[in-house]
C-alpha cells in the first residue's frame, strides 16, 4: 500500500514537472490555431511586409511592417540607453562601490523592478511626455523616444541583476592575478573581468531586449499609437504589443482583424522565444 502511494505521488510530481513544457506548447498552439487562420485570406507576404495596418478598412489592410518597425525603433532606443547604464551600474555595484552604497543601489534597482508597468506608463504620460515635448518643440510628447526612455528603465533591473551575477561569478584568482601583475583596478575590470564575464553579459543584454519587446502597457501609453512607418525617433509610433492590447477589446471574434491580432501575437511569441533561447544558450555556455 505504501509502495503504491509512493508510486502515485512520484507520478503526480512527474506530471507537474512536465507542466511547463505543456504550457509552452499550449500557448503556441492557441496562438497558431487562430493566427494561422488569417493566411486563408491574406498571404503571409502581405502580412509580414505590407506597409498598411488598417484592419477596419474595406478590404482590411493587415500589413504589420509599421508595427514591427515601431517595436524595433522603440527597442533599439531602449537598448542604446539601458545597456551602457545597466552595465555601468552592474560594474559599480559588483566591483567599486563601498558596501553601504552597494546595498542602497541594489535596493533601488529592486524597487525599480517592482514598479508595475502601468504605473511607469502613467507617470511617463504625466511627467516625461511634457518634458520631451518642450525639449524638442514637438506637437506631442508621446513619441518613440518617450517610450524608449521609459522602457530603458524597465529593462535596467534585468540587465543589472544578471550582469552583476556574471561579474561576481568570475573567479577571484583572475582578479588577484591581474592585480599582482601591477595592473590598476580599472585595467583589471575592463581587460580581465569583463571579458571573463562576457557570456553572462551577452545573456543580460538579450534578456533585457526580450523584456523591452514584450512590454505592453507602458509602451501603449507613451508612444502615441500612430500606425505609420516611423521615420525618426521623435514621431509617434505603434508597437506590436500595443496594437494587440488596444485593438483586441474592440474586434469581432472570428473576423480577419481578430485573426490578424492572433497572428501578431504568434510573431511576438516566436521572436521572444528565440531571444530567450539564445540568452539561455549564452548562460549555459558560461557554466561549462
Amino acid at each position, binding site marked *: 500500500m505504501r509502495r503504491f502511494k509512493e508510486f502515485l505521488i*512520484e507520478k503526480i510530481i512527474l506530471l507537474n514537472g512536465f507542466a511547463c513544457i505543456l504550457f509552452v506548447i499550449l500557448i503556441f498552439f492557441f*496562438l497558431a490555431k*487562430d493566427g494561422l487562420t488569417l493566411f486563408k485570406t491574406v498571404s503571409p507576404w502581405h502580412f509580414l511586409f505590407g506597409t498598411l495596418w488598417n484592419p477596419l478598412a474595406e478590404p482590411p489592410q493587415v500589413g504589420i511592417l509599421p508595427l514591427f518597425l515601431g517595436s524595433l525603433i522603440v527597442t533599439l532606443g531602449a537598448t542604446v540607453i539601458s545597456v551602457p547604464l545597466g552595465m555601468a551600474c552592474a*560594474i559599480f555595484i559588483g566591483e567599486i562601490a563601498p558596501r553601504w552604497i552597494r546595498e542602497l543601489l541594489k535596493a533601488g*534597482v529592486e524597487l525599480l523592478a517592482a514598479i508595475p508597468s502601468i504605473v511607469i506608463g502613467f*507617470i511617463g504620460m504625466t511627467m516625461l511626455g511634457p518634458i520631451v515635448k518642450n525639449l524638442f518643440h514637438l506637437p506631442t510628447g508621446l513619441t518613440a523616444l518617450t517610450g524608449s526612455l521609459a522602457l530603458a528603465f524597465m529593462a*535596467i533591473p534585468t540587465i543589472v541583476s544578471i550582469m552583476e551575477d556574471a561579474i561576481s561569478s568570475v573567479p577571484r584568482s583572475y582578479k588577484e592575478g591581474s592585480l599582482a601583475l601591477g595592473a590598476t583596478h*580599472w585595467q583589471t575590470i575592463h581587460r580581465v573581468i569583463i571579458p571573463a564575464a562576457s557570456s553572462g553579459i551577452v545573456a543580460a543584454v538579450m534578456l533585457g531586449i*526580450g523584456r523591452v519587446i514584450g512590454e505592453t502597457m507602458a509602451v501603449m501609453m507613451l508612444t502615441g499609437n500612430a500606425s505609420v512607418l516611423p521615420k525618426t525617433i521623435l514621431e509617434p509610433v505603434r508597437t506590436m504589443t500595443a496594437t494587440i492590447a488596444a485593438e483586441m477589446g474592440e474586434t469581432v471574434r472570428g473576423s480577419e482583424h481578430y485573426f490578424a491580432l492572433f497572428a501578431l501575437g504568434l510573431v511576438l*511569441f516566436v521572436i521572444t522565444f528565440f531571444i530567450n533561447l539564445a540568452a539561455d544558450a549564452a548562460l549555459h555556455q558560461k557554466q561549462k
Partner: protein
Amino acid sequence: MKFSSQTKQKIAFMLLGIASTIVIVPVIVIFTILIQKGLPAINWQFLTAMPRMGMRAGGIFPAIMGTLYLVSGTIVVALPLGVLAAIYLVEYARRNFLTRMIEVAIVNLAGVPSVVYGLFGMGLFVIYLKMGVSIVAGALTLAIMILPVIITSAKEALQSVPRSFREASLALGVSKWQTIRYVVLPNALPGILTGTILGISRAAGETAPILFTVAAFYLPRLPKSIFDQCMALPYHLYVLSTQVPNVSPKIQYGTALVLVGMVFLLNLVAVIVRSHIRSRKQW
C-alpha cells in the same frame, strides 16, 4: 592627450558612479511624485467606497477587492503546481534531455510577453474552455505567467537544504516522499514563500494579461462568483488615465499609490521573510 593609468581609473570610476546615479535618481523621483500627489487622495472613503459619477468621484473599493480575488486565485493554482514542479526538478529528475527541455520551457515561459499571455488566456480559458470573461480565467492566466518565478525560487530553496538532511532521513528507512514531505519541505518553506510572494506582487501589478480575460471597465459592485467579471487596480488605473476624460489627477495618483503600495507591501514581506531565514538558518 595621454593620461596615466591612475588618472584613467579615476575618470572611469567617476563615469560609472554618474551612470549609477542616473539609474537611481528616477526611482526616487517616481516615489516622491507618487507619494506627494497620491497621499492627499487616500482616506477611508477612497479605499472603501464604490466609484461614482463615471469613476470621477468616490472610491476604488471594487478594484482593490478584485485584485485581492485575482491574487488569491493565482496563488491557489500557481503555488502547488510550481512547488511540485520544483520538487520534480530537484529531487527526482535525472540530468537528461527531457530535464533540459523542462528548463528551457521555464526560461521561455518567463520571457513570453504579458500581452501574449492575455491572448492565450482568452483563447484557452475564456473561449475554448467556455469560462467566459471571469475571475477564474484571469487567475489561471496570471498563474501560468508567474509559474517560472515560483519554480525558480522553490528550486533554489530546495537545493539549499543540505544533502545530509535527506541522507539521514533515508538512512532511518523513511521513504523518499516522506523525506521530502517531512524533512526537505519544512526546511525549504521560507524560501518558497519568498518566491511566491514576489510572484504574487508581479501578478498584482500586471495589466495586459487581465485585459481580455477578467477586467471589467466599470462594475460598481463586488463580483458574485468566480465566474463573474471584476475590476482590478492596474486596469482601473489604465482606464482612469487614458479612457475616461476629465478624471482629477488626485484620483489617478491616489489609485497609482494604492497599487504601488500593495505591490511594495508584498515585496517588503518577502524581504523580511528572506532576512529572517538567513538569520535563523542552523546549518
